[in-house]
Structure formats: C-alpha cells, structure tokens
C-alpha cells in the first residue's frame, strides 16, 4: 500500500523505539488468553461459517426446509430464511460466546452483561428452585465484589453490586408475595449486609458509593419484606408483645383455634419476628459506616492535597 520509506529524524527513531518497547512489554497479548479466545472464536466460526448463507440458499428453487426448535419442519421463503439464518447465527454465536468467554467474563467487562443475561435465562421458571438459584447468584455477585475489592478494581465492584441489586429486586418482589421466600432469603440478606459493611472499610473511596448503594438496597429490601410480612396491623405488636410477654392478648382475637392446637406453629412464626427485630438493631451498623465513608473525604481533602503531590507537583512544575 503506502510503504514508502521516508526520512525520519533521530529523535523520531528514539520515540519509535520506545513505542515499540512499550507495545512489546505492555500491550502484548497473554498467550493463554489468546488460546482461549481463539478456541471460542473457532467454535463460533465452526457454527457460523458452515451454516448455508442466505445468498446461496436463495439460488435454490425450492424453499428450504428447516427444523424449528422444538417444532415440526416448516418451509420458509428466502427473506424469512435469511432472517432465521441470522437468528440461528446469533444463537450460535451466543452459544459460542457462552462456551468460550462469557462464562469467564468478569464484572465490568464487556461480556459481563451477556453472562448475567445467560444466567438469568437459565434460571428455573419458578418456585423454590428459582429462589435458590437467585439466592446463589446473590452470593456469587457478592463474591465477585469481594474479589474485585481485593484487586482494587472499582469498576468491577460497581458492576457486581449493580447486578446484585438487580437480582435482589427480583427476590424482594417474590419475598413480598410469598412469606416462605421471605423467611428463606431474610437471613441471607442480613448476612450480605454484614459482608457489605465489612467490605465498605476495605475498598477505595471511589467504590464506597456502590457498596453504600447495595447496603441501602439491602436495608430497603429487608424493610419491605418485613412490612409485607407483618402487613396486618396487629402484627407490629408482636415484637413488643414477644419482648414483654404481653403479646398473648393479640393472638386470641385472631387465631383462637390455632393457639390451642398447634401452639407450636404460631410461636415459630412469632419467633422469626424477634429475629427480624434485630434488623432495626442492625441499622446502627450501616448507619455509622456510611458516615465514616463520607466523613473522611472532607477532612481528608485539605490533608490529602499534600498527598496528591503528583498532581500538585505537575502543577507547580
């Protein structure tokens, strides 16, 4: 093309040399990563390139017959075929990506969204299995956030906790609708609160916002679930009643039969509530933590200016 040999200045040659060194030392791909990428790309190529192209198919007189996923064979016109080919290709590529890199996509990476989407798509349709799977996903997001915090990767922390909040939203909706789910995930969320609170003290200042948001979100979820669980106005007396031992008067009014017969049943139901009362008691935990998160920066600003000497030095020099 334009490989003309041009005169270069000695200074240019030195700059070129340094750029070359920089490219070699800092920008060279990791061979293992490239092998993995190649495998994924070739898997996608095997599917994509061996699929008959619409243009080729259009030359054939009879309309192509394809087998719909989970359906009977049907015939399609050229345009429809082309669209379907694209859809199949997209599906194949998605599969290829899923096999290759998506499953390894890290939070904040370009394929992370696809990974979450695939996870979401593969969840059981409903019921306990779905709740369990979502709960496991929450744990996984939290683990990712923790790993990202270890790496000091602020962006990944934000991405993982963003996904965490999104999953929590779905679980919260389910928990509000179903007390059994509420019981199941209540403890999980409290555990997450503890982890997040601990994490808050370990991450750089830029990542605290994401963690505080996740803490707020978890707090709100617990509140909403509690409120939905104790939706009946008589219930709020229960914690107090439980504590004071005066709660008994509330019961006879509503469930006199159950108090006698399955006396054990109402009590376990009442027991979780005291368990959940500590949640307000736990609110002090998150409450003080944001403060340290927010307070350090203002006093730190004047103090840290000397620390930010790199910038300051540049300005001075």
């Amino acid at each position, binding site marked *: 093309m334009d490989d003309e040999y041009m005169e270069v200045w000695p200074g*240019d040659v030195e700059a070129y040399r340094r750029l070359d060194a*920089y490219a070699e*030392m*800092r*920008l060279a791909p*990791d061979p293992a990563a490239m092998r993995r990428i*190649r495998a994924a*790309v070739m898997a996608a190529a095997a599917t994509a*390139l061996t699929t008959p192209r619409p*243009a080729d198919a259009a030359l054939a007189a009879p309309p192509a017959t394809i087998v719909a996923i989970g359906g009977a064979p049907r015939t399609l016109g050229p345009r429809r075929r082309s669209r379907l080919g694209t859809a199949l290709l997209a599906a194949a590529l998605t599969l290829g990506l899923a096999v290759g890199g998506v499953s390894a996509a890290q939070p904040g990476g370009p394929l992370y969204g696809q990974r979450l989407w695939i996870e979401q798509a593969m969840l059981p349709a409903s019921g306990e299995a779905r709740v369990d799977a979502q709960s496991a996903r929450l744990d996984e997001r939290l683990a990712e956030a923790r790993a990202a915090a270890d790496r000091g990767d602020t962006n990944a922390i934000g991405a993982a906790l963003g996904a965490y909040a999104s999953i929590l939203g779905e679980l919260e909706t389910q928990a509000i609708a179903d007390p059994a789910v509420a019981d199941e995930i209540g403890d999980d969320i409290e555990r997450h609160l503890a982890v997040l609170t601990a994490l808050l003290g370990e991450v750089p200042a830029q990542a605290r916002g994401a963690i505080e948001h996740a803490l707020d979100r978890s707090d709100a979820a617990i509140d909403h679930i509690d409120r939905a669980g104790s939706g009946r106005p008589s219930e709020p007396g229960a914690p107090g009643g439980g504590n004071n031992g005066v709660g008994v008067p509330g019961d006879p009014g509503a469930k006199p039969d159950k108090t006698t017969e399955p006396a054990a049943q109402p009590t376990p139901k009442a027991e979780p509530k005291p368990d959940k009362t500590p949640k307000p008691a736990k609110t002090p935990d998150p409450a003080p933590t944001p403060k340290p998160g927010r307070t350090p920066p203002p006093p730190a600003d004047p103090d840290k200016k000397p620390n930010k000497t790199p910038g300051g030095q540049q300005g001075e020099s």
Partner: protein
Amino acid sequence: MTLDDAAIDRLVTDARDGDTSAFGRLFDHYHGPIYRYVISRVHRPSDAEDLTQLVFVKALEALPRYEARGIPFGGWLFRLARNTVIDHVRTRHEHADLETVTHRTGTDAGPEEIVAVRQALDEVATALETLTDEQREAIALRFFAGLSASEAAVVMGKQPGTVRGLQFRAIAAMRRSLGIDAPDDALTGAVRASNEQPARRGRAG
C-alpha cells in the same frame, strides 16, 4: 506469520465459503495487532481480551457483508475493532488507569534493570496520555497495530495525509514529553509529508 494482501483476500474468500481453518488463519494473523490496538485504548487486559473476542465474533457475523464494501480486510476488521472499543468506552464511562495495563519486564533482567525499564515504559504511558484522542488513535493504529498510514486512514475515516499529520504531531509531542532531543529544524516547518515508518507493517500475530 506474514500474509500478503492477496493471501488475505484468498483466506477471506475461503472463510466466506465455509472454511473455518481459513478464518483461523485470519485470526492468527490479526489477533495480536487487534489486541494491541484494543488494549492501548481500553487499558484493562481483561476488557481487551473480551473485546478482542467480540471483534472476531462480529467479524464472523459480518463477513458475508464484507465483500460489497471494497475495503481491505485489515482496514475493515480494525474498523470493527474501533467501533467495538468506542461502544465499550461509551457505555462504560470509566477508564482504567494506565497502571492497570499488564506490566511485563524482561525475564532475565535484574531488579535494577526491571525498575529502569518499568520507569521508561511508565514515561511512555504518561507521554501517550498527553496526546489528543485522535493522535493517540493514530499512534495505536500505526505503531501498536502495525497498520500503514492508508490502512489507518481507512479505519479512522480520514485521509492518509491527515493520519500522517496526526502521527507527526503525536511523535513531536511525545519527544517533548520524553525529553528526546531533536534537531531544531525538525520541530520547525509544517507537517512533513514524510514520516512514514518503514517496517511498521506486517507485525502481525
């Protein structure tokens, strides 16, 4: 692995005809330059790896539409890479620091040498940060991806002369940042039409 333009065209044709090994050879030829270009733009190795994969997957998907465009395959592929990077940067709103770029030093180097090399590389990274976005892109395409000025021009949607001008100004700015002395007359005068770097091309794979 070096391939001339004709060989690349043949591989592209074969790949379009369903020859996966041909696409594999194209991958082998281009993945290094593509990765170097991508990581020079996004800085984070994990992102660069994901994006490199995405570029080739997009290329697979778009391969049937390639022929009609009449652009050299390399330029077309780098355009895909550029758009992928732009999309990524746009949606991410945040860049990793240059410090997150992989730090590699010579395997046989002693500690002092390693420190010296790291420092020199950091200086280059800092100098690159002082460039305008277009200058940086020109440098990334020309030096890190190994494209010719014409190929880089195709990718950037500019004239080759414009790319040479960007490169010239970028190198001049880097020389200043790095404290590399240049002849007085080198810094005067308009943009040289001639700062084409020989042997930039073919640094594939």
